[in-house]
């Protein structure tokens, strides 16, 4: 218990430090000039149920790679939830792929957030999926079209419910 408190104190002191220096979250997404297929994967969710990316073929998918210890991942998460709430669920899916943590860690983390995420959280416990997607740092996010092709990328935190991002998603949904 003492050890946990110690970690919590240190983490919060880093968060204080991070509050000052974290860059503002932008909304730029980079267009993939060479459209490539998104590699399919199977991971488990918070309920230990298996989920495949291909389960969502026909929907536009925002695929986000993150971890609870990553400050910009935490900062962009509320905007992902707002995006998830705003955009038509029949044609759009937000999937947050956690890196090398377990359900208990993520459950404890999401319980501390102002808004509990209602989007899909999956567990990439060996980071094998992030390697398939050439993720070098967290957070990294891909926007995948209805045909399962990667169309946009963002390295670093973003405001995902920005009007321009929503416009891009709606354009992909309308294709």
């Amino acid at each position, binding site marked *: 218990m003492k050890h946990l408190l110690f*970690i919590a104190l*240190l983490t919060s002191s880093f968060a204080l430090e991070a509050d000052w*220096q974290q*860059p503002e979250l932008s909304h730029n997404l980079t267009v993939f000039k060479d459209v490539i297929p998104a590699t399919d994967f199977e991971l488990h969710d918070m309920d230990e149920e298996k989920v495949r990316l291909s389960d969502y073929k026909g929907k536009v998918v925002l695929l986000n790679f993150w971890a609870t*210890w990553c400050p910009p991942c935490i900062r962009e998460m509320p905007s992902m939830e707002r995006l998830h709430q705003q955009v038509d669920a029949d044609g759009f899916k937000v999937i947050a792929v956690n890196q090398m943590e377990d359900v208990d860690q993520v459950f404890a983390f999401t319980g501390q957030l102002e808004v509990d995420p209602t989007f899909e959280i999956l567990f990439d416990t060996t*980071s094998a999926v992030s390697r398939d997607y050439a993720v070098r740092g*967290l957070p990294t996010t891909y926007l995948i079209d209805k045909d399962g092709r990667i169309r946009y990328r*963002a*390295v670093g*935190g973003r405001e995902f419910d920005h009007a321009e991002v929503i416009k891009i998603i709606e354009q992909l949904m309308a294709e």
Partner: protein
Amino acid sequence: MKKLVLGTLLAISVVMALVTGAVASETKVHKNKNTGLLTWTLNDKGFQVELIQLLPDFIRAIYAKHNFPKDEIERAASYCVFGTILKNTSDQQLSYRVADWRYQTSDGKSHPVKTKTQWLEEWRKAGVTFSWTLLPDVGEFSVGDWQQGFTTIKLPRNAEFDLIFKWQLDGVVHTGTLENIICAPESLPEM
């Protein structure tokens, strides 16, 4: 007379532009009022580099949380570790390679910065599979992209050095220096 006034105004604006340009590429130092820890920031030619002092106990806590062996936790904490934020502030494609970066100690000697690949190889031998937290070796940043991670320097607590880093913007290699960087102390400085 009119020409003289215009000429003077033009000269002043040129000087102001030069001064502004010089200020834009200066290192800014920030002291956290809660912890006393220091942060250095340099924004030059489309690349912003920020180094944040991190306490050894913070490093211990991070790697303990990820079940690292005790020896590996202590080895990581023995380094001078900085939280590092890199950002593409330009409107072009930007890239960097940590292998091109050096730190220069007060004796004038230049040393390579240890890369994530080197760390991961050592961790693998110690049975560690965790592969995050360290600054990626290579970055390919589009407009608005940024990234963060730990930079590790093999120097003792409170040691001073200059970090010399390179980046490529639109095919041109640039070099920047964060001067007089100080390794974090063993524990929080007295306020």
